[in-house]
């Protein structure tokens, strides 16, 4: 299987990356090189195998359950500290270009 220019443009849009034409050509070439070694996984018979999303899931007898914490506020308000590395802030709000006309 081989990707083409159109695939690269589509994925770049999904990934929110603006690629220059030369960058796009290089990307196509290198991603296709990579998929050459990926093809071998399609031949593996995985019938009945449960996908492993996570190593904790594979630890035998560990009885470790993934958990959620209670939905309560636990952090103090540190708005200034949290915003001091933001590119554009006004009156405690993050500024972005206009979204709705």
């Amino acid at each position, binding site marked *: 299987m081989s*990707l083409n220019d159109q*695939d*690269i443009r589509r*994925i*770049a849009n*999904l*990934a*929110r*990356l*603006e*690629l*220059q034409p030369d*960058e796009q050509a*290089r*990307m196509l070439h*290198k*991603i296709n*090189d*990579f998929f050459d*070694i*990926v093809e*071998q*996984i*399609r031949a*593996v018979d*995985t019938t009945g*195998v*449960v*996908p*492993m*999303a*996570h*190593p*904790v899931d*594979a*630890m*035998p007898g*560990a009885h*470790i359950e*993934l*958990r*959620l*914490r209670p939905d309560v506020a*636990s952090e103090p308000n*540190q708005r200034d*500290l*949290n*915003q*001091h*590395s*933001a*590119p*554009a802030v006004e009156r405690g709000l*993050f500024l*972005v*270009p*206009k*979204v709705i006309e």
Partner: protein
Amino acid sequence: MRGTDMTQSLHNQSLSELSTALRAKHVSAVELAQHFLARAKADASGAFLDINEDATLAQAKASDARLAAGTGGALEGVPLAHKDVFVTRDFVTTAGSKILSGYRSPFDATVVQKLGTLADGTVGAGMVTLGKLNCDEFAMGSSNENSAYGAVTNPWDASRIPGGSSGGSAAAVAARLTPAATGTDTGGSIRQPASFCGITGIKPTYGRASRYGMIAYASSLDQAGPMARSAEDCALLLSAMCGPDIDRDATSLDVPAENFSAKLGDSLQGLRIGLPKEFFGDGLATDVRTAIDAALKTLEAQGAKLVPITLPRTELAIPVYYIIAPAEASSNLSRFDGVKFGHRAKDYTDLVSMYKKTRAEGFGEEVKRRIMTGAYVLSHGYYDAYYLQAQKIRRMMADDFQRAFAECDVIAGPVAPTVAWKLGNNASDPLADYLADIFTLPASLAGLPGMSVPVGFGEAGMPVGMQLIGNYLQEARLLNVAHQYQLHTDFHNAKPEGV
């Protein structure tokens, strides 16, 4: 002990020697910090990305006060440096990326807190931070050449890479710029640079050390661990780093903190060491093989038995890892959009163009490639064929390890097929870097603990590391084997010329 002799040798002392010298007041934490800062500032390898002398000396003064009061932590006043993927309040954190240029975190990562001082001011291990260490951008790489802030040179040969992604950590420890460093390992990023720089490093079981405040690359694989000169030093650091962080890391194991030094002295009599035949095939360079074989003989002489085993899906680890890790990365790195932190492009027309230009300017080529690969394998029509299929093979590989561990106690083999290669060697061929990860990826995918132990020198006098892989939560066993080996050998004490 004060005087020239003492300061000359300070950087060659072990963590426990430094700790003893501090407690005996032979040296102060401030003097120790100054000694290492002077070395770090004079270094030309590119290992350090940020040094903040005022912050370091303030931490050292606080350590001296605690030492005087007898209230210090386990490694009070001993210096260390952190890989730049751990967020820190006192130092800039970039993860080796331009997109985080100048970024200051509002908090310290859990691992940083546990090794130093906790957020509420109570002392953790009480170590003093010297600064932040270079790495491949977002820990994506095997050579440290993917850092936006320049490559790092190997202290054993400045024309060679130090390995990656924790290349700055390995180089800094090998060059004695710091007695210890943190690293992170997603597909081998602690073990491989440790091997290439002739130091000792361990990646614990997935979930042992908190991921809170570790900038995420591939969340089901990322794991923090220590890098130092010996197994004994690594055991001290790992004991301080691990432990549950239930409220802040959803995959932190609810397993009590452990004293990993407790079993260092155990005998290796009867230990079954499994040798996967797939790790000793044609792809393994002769010089590496020779050093590993000699190390196995040493372990045999100490009473260990060598057992042939098989990990039949080893070769599949490369495609499986390079599907799963980029898939997770494409999702994790979506947060870098120029809104809440980091770089923002100057010229844009609307919100989407701002995202696209910001990310195009902020990310390096390898990071973009992995984001693209990840977005592709997760996209409609390809998810089942690639991503889900990779996860299924991941399960089969984890099961292969369990079958192997029915026949052996630990697994041994090479960390990498060759010694450290020349800078620029694989610049036009990223696949060559991927293929060189073959021996570290399997343990990462399974979430097993693995370590690298220096076992000699190969081509051009470059260090060779032996990999030890244990079953889940068996870090103490790995450290025990490594320590017993280091009691009978001196490779971990070897120094690059001029150090």
